[in-house]
């Protein structure tokens, strides 16, 4: 026993883990630290300063891009969560012909390289649908790549779902609609919340597909940063990046709290059914 233990859990694993975590976090920490550096260039930390943040607050372009990003992410998340959840329900709760065809579509939208989807949507919007590139095309594109993530997450949650709960609800006289709203939905809620959160984060970050499908007036924040980065490194971008990092972490925290609450309610649902 002790021999297998030492072989299974050697001490160097701890050191390795420590180094990997350092590798994961050091660049982000460096980035944030240097956003408070007064010097315009170079990597010597001269003096603590918040001037790049003052600069950021007065940067109309960046603020407008941030608002655009939020608009896109919120609409895309709502639509993708609705469509993805319906699809996930269908794929897990029913056996029917053509199921694998649907699964294949979801799979393809997951593995398609972003560049390929980007140019395909560009060609579709411009040449086929004769739409002008802008906010509308960006939102449509974001919904397209968000759906599959929602489907996968909600499906994972529903696949551990105990169908006997629905049968029990029906035996107790619940109509299908009632049992859906009061049994199935509360149980799936954590999965739906997690799927929505993932969709929101992915939409918030996307640069490649937006790059191809955005026209004038649809400059999202990642696109704005990407444009600035091609020019070169500057502390201004460090401040902007730190702001984006802070924003996603806060959004993440709110999402996690919400999903923890949903999980609690979901469990409450099981208990109530079991008792009833």
């Amino acid at each position, binding site marked *: *026993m002790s021999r*297998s233990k030492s*072989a299974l*859990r050697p001490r160097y*694993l*701890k050191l390795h*883990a420590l180094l*990997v975590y350092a*590798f*994961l976090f050091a*660049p*982000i920490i*460096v*980035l944030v630290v*240097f956003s408070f550096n007064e010097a315009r260039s170079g*990597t010597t930390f001269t003096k603590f300063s918040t001037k790049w943040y003052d600069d950021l607050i007065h940067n109309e372009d960046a603020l407008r891009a941030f608002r655009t990003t939020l608009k896109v992410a919120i609409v895309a998340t709502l639509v993708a969560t*609705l469509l993805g959840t*319906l*699809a996930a329900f*269908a*794929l897990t*709760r*029913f*056996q*029917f012909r*053509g199921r694998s065809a*649907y699964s294949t*579509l*979801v799979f*393809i939208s997951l*593995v*398609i*390289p*972003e*560049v*390929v*989807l980007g*140019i*395909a*949507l560009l*060609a*579709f919007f411009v*040449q*086929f649908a004769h739409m002008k590139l802008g906010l509308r095309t960006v939102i449509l*594109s974001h*919904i*397209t790549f968000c759906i599959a993530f929602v*489907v996968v997450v909600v499906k994972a949650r529903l696949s551990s779902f105990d169908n006997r709960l629905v049968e029990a609800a029906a035996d107790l006289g619940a*109509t*299908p609609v009632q049992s859906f709203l009061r049994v199935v939905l509360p149980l799936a809620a954590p999965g739906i919340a997690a799927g929505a959160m993932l969709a929101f*984060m992915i939409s918030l*970050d996307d640069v490649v597909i937006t790059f191809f499908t955005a026209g004038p007036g649809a400059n999202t924040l*990642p696109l704005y940063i*990407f444009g600035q*980065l091609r020019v070169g*490194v500057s502390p201004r971008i460090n401040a902007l*990046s730190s702001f984006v990092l802070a924003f*996603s*972490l806060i959004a*993440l925290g709110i999402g996690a709290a919400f999903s923890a609450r949903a999980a609690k309610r979901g469990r409450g649902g099981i208990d109530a059914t079991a008792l009833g």
Partner: protein
Amino acid sequence: MSRTLADAPPAPEPVEEPPRARRTLPEWLKANLLLLPTAVWFLALLVIPMLIVIQYSLARRGIIKPVRFSWSNLQWHNYQDALGSRFLRIFLRSIYYSAATTIACVALGFPLAYWIARFTGRLRNIFLVLVIIPFLTSYLIRMYAWQFILQRDGLLNDTLGALHLGNHHVFLNTSFAVILGLTYGFLPFMVLPLYASIERMDPSLVEASYDLGHGKVSTFFRVIVPTVAPGLVAGTLLVFIPATGDFVTPELLGGVKTQMFGNTIQDQFGSGQNWPLGSAMAVVLMAFILIGVYVYLRRVGEDAL
């Protein structure tokens, strides 16, 4: 179909029927109704766009419109160009970078996942969340962080200079920088599925292997690796596929000599203005990925996904 649709509203029923019989919509119809919005969406914004790309890959460059397509004059030479010596080199380079990235992710991620799996409860969740947090922050910004560190008078050169190892190293625009960036970007994709399968592993299997006289190495390859194979498969797919098509990392950390296939596709739709050639490249990339996924899953079994 019309009959079932007509039956859909709860029809007045004989009193002796149990209430469940009111559910008249057949399963397949309910499923298809639920799937209809997503199916229509994917048809319009995934399937049709892909078909357009395939069509464009056989068209000619236009003067007023970007492409001129005619059924009687299919331009197969676009594929010859897409896989001609110049672009083939870039294509192979993309595969080489992605393979190196995948290997680096396994080397870094496997021991980490193994280490996390030894913990229980709260601590384990904290360590997992620490892996996920960087992944949920912007990919673009994480690549910028490396650009900041690797630049000519950046932090890495400063540190090396302080250690008297020279401070004029060139890191940006090298294969090293691109592979490093890709590894950094996709590492969580490897750790999470690996962790999921290691967590399911029964430690008594390892003990049994020792009791039957196998050594550490033999136990590792004959017991541990086969048990975590599903996670390894999922992780490899999740890292290799997006790495092959990535164009942000080579754009920010690489240069002309480290271009990947994604960059050349983007070029054709941007400054290059050769949509048919770019479309042919996109079809090649997509086909490569789909065939790769198919072969890989065949080899290791479809349950792995």
